[in-house]
């Protein structure tokens, strides 16, 4: 970083900067976690790694050993997969969204959301295990109408593209920081980061490329995410519940994914602020903005859910009544109520109050509640679709009983989520937090200015 003047000019007057942190501080904060891992961090990594191993063992002992003949033993593998796709998979979308609206508050938060792309390998592996369960689309309702290779080939292509794009997005956004780390450390670390940074020198052309690549990978990621969630929700859920032609469901599934992505970002930000030493970067401003987004998406999710319910309610055909009984009022009533409370009522009633939303704790708590509610939502959806239904029928004639998870199922769920968290934590050893180039870049664009009788923040808007 070239040396610079920490004041800015408005006409002929100097404006003092907002962040009282000089860039050197930001660089050293970013390097801190790369240089040395704290004991809390180490402990967390070990615990989550153990959980991951436990999850894998439970996965092999349970579903894998029972084979791919029946769907039901794989229910909680699917639940884990759905949960991870909705949280880890959607977090990069949150990063893209904040970039799109050019909010100045996003700079310390972006990196937290992008980091989760590192854990995408876990849902990818689960996907390959699950897609083998799906039969050919001939003779049954689906998006594919018996196309060649459907659904395995196309779903796989989409998932692989998504994961690659996610890693590319993370890498492109992190590469300048990796170059900064390379320039500031020696020894083994230097070697590692030289390889990672791949010759980034910070020329004007390289910076422009970074800007464009981040924008394109980001936009592409969002499109791929929406597409992937559409395919997953239709092939793994809708097509496996006879008579379920709910056109809104792919959209509902995507929106609850986005809602959970924000929740994950909030919780991550909360953890980093409390125990990650990022207090200087994650202020009320960040939580206020994220809290608003969380509230908005909670409302949106409820709205999409409601439109599905109300159409079936008014239709009242036997086909729809059976679906209502399975998914809403009979079999999976309890997970529905829990999900509804945690993913809609909680964000609404808690985040409605200005004071809570303008604080730090409120949005984080709501984020955590949404994540828990998300688990129950996935349980509701996959338990019903992985029940032994006859997927070649046009209507659900027998409502299957609720599937109660066994010990192995819970171990799979908790363990594999722990494993994904472990990967996210490990990413912190390769990608600095805070995002040095973005936060420092933001420094240049902010200043304080006396304005009539008060003092305001002036934000530069280069475009």
């Amino acid at each position, binding site marked *: 970083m070239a040396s610079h003047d920490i004041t800015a000019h408005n006409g002929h007057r100097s404006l003092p900067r907002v962040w009282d942190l000089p860039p050197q501080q930001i660089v050293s904060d970013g390097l801190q976690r790369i240089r040395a891992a704290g004991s809390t961090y180490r402990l967390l990594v070990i615990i989550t790694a153990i959980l991951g191993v436990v999850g894998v063992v439970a996965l092999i002992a349970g579903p894998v050993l029972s084979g791919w003949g029946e769907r039901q033993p794989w229910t909680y593998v699917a639940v884990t997969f759905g949960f991870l796709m909705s949280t880890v998979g959607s977090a990069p979308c949150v990063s893209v969204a904040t970039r799109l609206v050019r909010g100045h508050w996003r700079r310390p938060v972006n990196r937290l959301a992008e980091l989760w792309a590192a854990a995408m390998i876990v849902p990818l592996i689960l996907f390959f295990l699950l897609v083998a369960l799906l039969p050919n689309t001939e003779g049954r309702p689906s998006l594919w109408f018996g196309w060649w290779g459907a659904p395995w080939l196309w779903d796989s292509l989409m998932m692989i593209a998504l994961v690659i794009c996610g890693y590319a997005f993370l890498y492109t956004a992190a590469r300048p920081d990796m170059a900064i780390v390379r320039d500031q450390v020696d020894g083994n670390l230097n070697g590692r980061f030289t390889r990672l940074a791949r010759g980034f020198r910070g020329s004007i052309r390289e910076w422009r490329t970074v800007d464009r690549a981040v924008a394109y990978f980001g936009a592409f990621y969002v499109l791929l995410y929406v597409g992937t969630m559409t395919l997953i929700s239709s092939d793994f859920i809708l097509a496996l519940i006879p008579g379920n032609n709910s056109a809104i469901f792919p959209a509902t599934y995507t929106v609850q994914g986005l809602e959970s992505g924000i929740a994950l970002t909030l919780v991550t930000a909360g953890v980093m602020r409390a125990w990650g030493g990022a207090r200087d970067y994650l202020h009320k401003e960040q939580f206020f903005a994220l809290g608003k987004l969380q509230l908005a998406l909670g409302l949106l999710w409820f709205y999409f859910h409601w439109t599905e319910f109300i159409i079936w309610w*008014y239709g*009242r*055909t*036997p*086909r729809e*009544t059976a679906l209502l009984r399975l998914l809403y009022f009979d079999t999976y009533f309890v997970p529905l109520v829990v999900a509804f409370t945690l993913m809609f009522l909680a964000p609404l009633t808690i985040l409605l109050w200005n004071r809570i939303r303008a604080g730090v704790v409120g949005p984080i708590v709501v984020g955590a509640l949404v994540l828990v509610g998300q688990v129950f939502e996935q349980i509701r959806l996959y338990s019903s679709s992985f029940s032994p239904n006859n997927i070649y029928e046009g209507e659900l004639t027998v409502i299957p009983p609720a599937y109660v998870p066994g010990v192995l199922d819970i171990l799979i769920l908790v363990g594999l989520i722990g494993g994904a968290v472990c990967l996210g934590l490990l990413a912190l050893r390769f990608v600095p937090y805070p995002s040095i180039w973005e936060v420092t870049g933001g420094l240049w664009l902010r200043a304080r200015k006396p304005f009539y009788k008060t003092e305001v923040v002036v934000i530069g808007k280069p475009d």
Partner: protein
Amino acid sequence: MSPRWGMVIDLDRCTGCQACVVACQAENNIPINTEAVYLQNRAIEWIRVERYWDGEYPNIKARYIPVPCMHCSNAPCEPVCPVYATYHTPEGINMQVYNRCIGTRYCAVNCHWHVRFFNFWQPKWPESLQNQLNPNVTVRSRGVMEKCTFCIQRINHAEQNARLDGNRPLRDGEVNTACAQACPTRAIVFGDLDDPESQVAQIANTTTRGYKVLAELGTDPAVLYLKKIDPEAPAHGGAESA
């Protein structure tokens, strides 16, 4: 116990003569459908006979199906009227209240049997035919929805008589709709489905040929159709086939 009105239409007996259509038109003051109105696709026929061609030349057959209002228990046309101009009577009839109707046509949009009709024009009868109008039935103005009422005027008349006659229950055959009365082959049978002695209940409860049109919509129609017997199909256990 109040009756539950229903109808059975035997497609094996229906010849497509449309006597039911004419009788209904005469009984219920249905506007005269001129050629112009038919060309505008606005003809009002509370019971209509649809004709479908079956087979390839030279083995073409005409199939007829008379379609009155189904008087669904779970009628899709009822919850959608903003002014409650259509509702379900305790005796199972889907009633239309002409005074309240403002003519949004939502009920017609929601009727999947196409049995609801709208008065696009002001109905007119020539001077000489005005004496023919049935005084027991409202003459509707333009802008109002109308449909088959299972000849509610005849039902009311019979029920009044039964009340005056010592509050006795109605006997089977005492009430008949105009279409059932006119049908030369007795393809249409009308009566109280809850009266085990009535002809309609006996047919409905014992037939193996019965089906309801668009049953998958779950609206529970009160009209039961009896499938036409196909004479060329191989006989098995009673010469009744699909």
